[in-house]
């Protein structure tokens, strides 16, 4: 008769994991879960675990996950069964996310799927093709504890007489480093004053005028960037203005133009901005 596995009976089998290695006893009902918050395309992540069972045999458990690209939580689980958990890891199998675009959490809990109750977090952090998270070894890092991915984004070209609005996506946290757009004014006589507004989706907290008046029938390129000095016009075709250093914009926050005296035929275009983006998760 095969004896029931218990924690005490098989303590000696721990030698297989190596002297001094941290291990954790798993019961039959415990689940190893990988939760991934991802924004990058074509990402596939493996959840792998290794246990030593009641006969001293090393056994692998593995599952794969193709996470959504909308920064919402995607999960995959394995139930290794009774034994000593000696290792677990989240490993990128496909895709090329930058640091900050794919965040993974390795955890243990009772039950599975909708009845899962998380009891312990083993490791957490961002993963890339060169960076895994593993237990034991990795620390538990929050999703914002990374450098973030540099992204140069082409924004929406608005209709004529309409302002630019770019919104931080759900589950993201961005630092706006630079923002560029071009305004072509119609023949309607008026002095336009371009401003860049940062708001929380409703209330304005920063408004930066470009320091240049743009009359009718002109094309001017506007640049807002961290590190620029006070608003400056360069040869009347390029306007430079500063952005708050180290700003952080949460999900739903907006970067938008607000043009005093904008006319129905005025056209904003060539919207391009540089952000350092991290995942907060949704």
């Amino acid at each position: 008769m095969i004896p029931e596995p218990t924690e005490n009976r098989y303590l000696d089998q721990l030698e297989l994991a190596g002297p001094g290695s941290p291990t954790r006893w798993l019961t039959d009902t415990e689940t190893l879960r990988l939760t991934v918050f991802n924004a990058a395309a074509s990402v596939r992540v493996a959840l792998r675990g290794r246990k030593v069972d009641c006969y001293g045999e090393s056994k692998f458990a593995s599952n794969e996950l193709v996470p959504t690209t909308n920064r919402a939580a995607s999960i995959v689980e394995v139930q290794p069964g009774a034994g000593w958990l000696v290792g677990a890891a989240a490993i990128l199998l496909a895709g090329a996310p930058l640091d900050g675009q794919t965040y993974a959490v390795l955890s243990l809990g009772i039950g599975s799927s909708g009845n899962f109750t998380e009891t312990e977090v083993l490791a957490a952090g961002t993963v890339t093709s060169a960076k895994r998270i593993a237990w034991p070894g990795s620390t538990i890092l929050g999703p914002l504890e990374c450098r973030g991915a540099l992204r140069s984004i082409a924004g929406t070209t608005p209709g004529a007489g309409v302002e630019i609005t770019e919104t931080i996506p759900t589950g993201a946290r961005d630092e706006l480093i630079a923002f560029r757009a071009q305004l072509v004014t119609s023949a309607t006589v008026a002095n336009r004053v371009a401003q860049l507004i940062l708001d929380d989706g409703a209330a304005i907290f920063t408004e930066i005028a470009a320091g240049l008046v743009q009359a009718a029938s002109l094309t001017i390129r506007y640049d807002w960037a961290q590190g620029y000095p006070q608003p400056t016009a360069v040869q009347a075709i390029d306007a430079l203005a500063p952005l708050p250093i180290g700003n952080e914009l949460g999900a739903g926050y907006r970067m938008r133009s607000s043009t005093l005296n904008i006319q129905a035929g005025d056209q904003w275009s060539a919207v391009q901005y540089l952000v350092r983006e991290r995942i907060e998760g949704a």
Partner: protein
Amino acid sequence: MRIRCKCCLGEYDDVLADGMRYFHVCPPLSSAELRELLERDELALPDHLARGLAAAKERDEQFPVPEGAPTNVERELASWSIPREGHRDENIVAEGPPNVARAMRSEGAGVERAD
């Protein structure tokens, strides 16, 4: 794919050059659109905005700005954030269980191919 929003007529790529998804959100009404709607008396203003507009008009009458400079009314309109009818917000709702598709916040007036 190049997309045109039927509400704001903005054009954008649904997937960006770096392979990441782009989530379009319609801009609020610009001051040019607000002026037009106010002239046609087609904009119902909440009390606080109506009061702000009346105060700006009064300031402009009492202390006229130099020729060509933005008026107080223009500054007031530019500070508003009034969503347009049929407003589209492609961001997903923030809350929901894992592994379940999240709904878009607002389909709005929809989109069409622009290319």
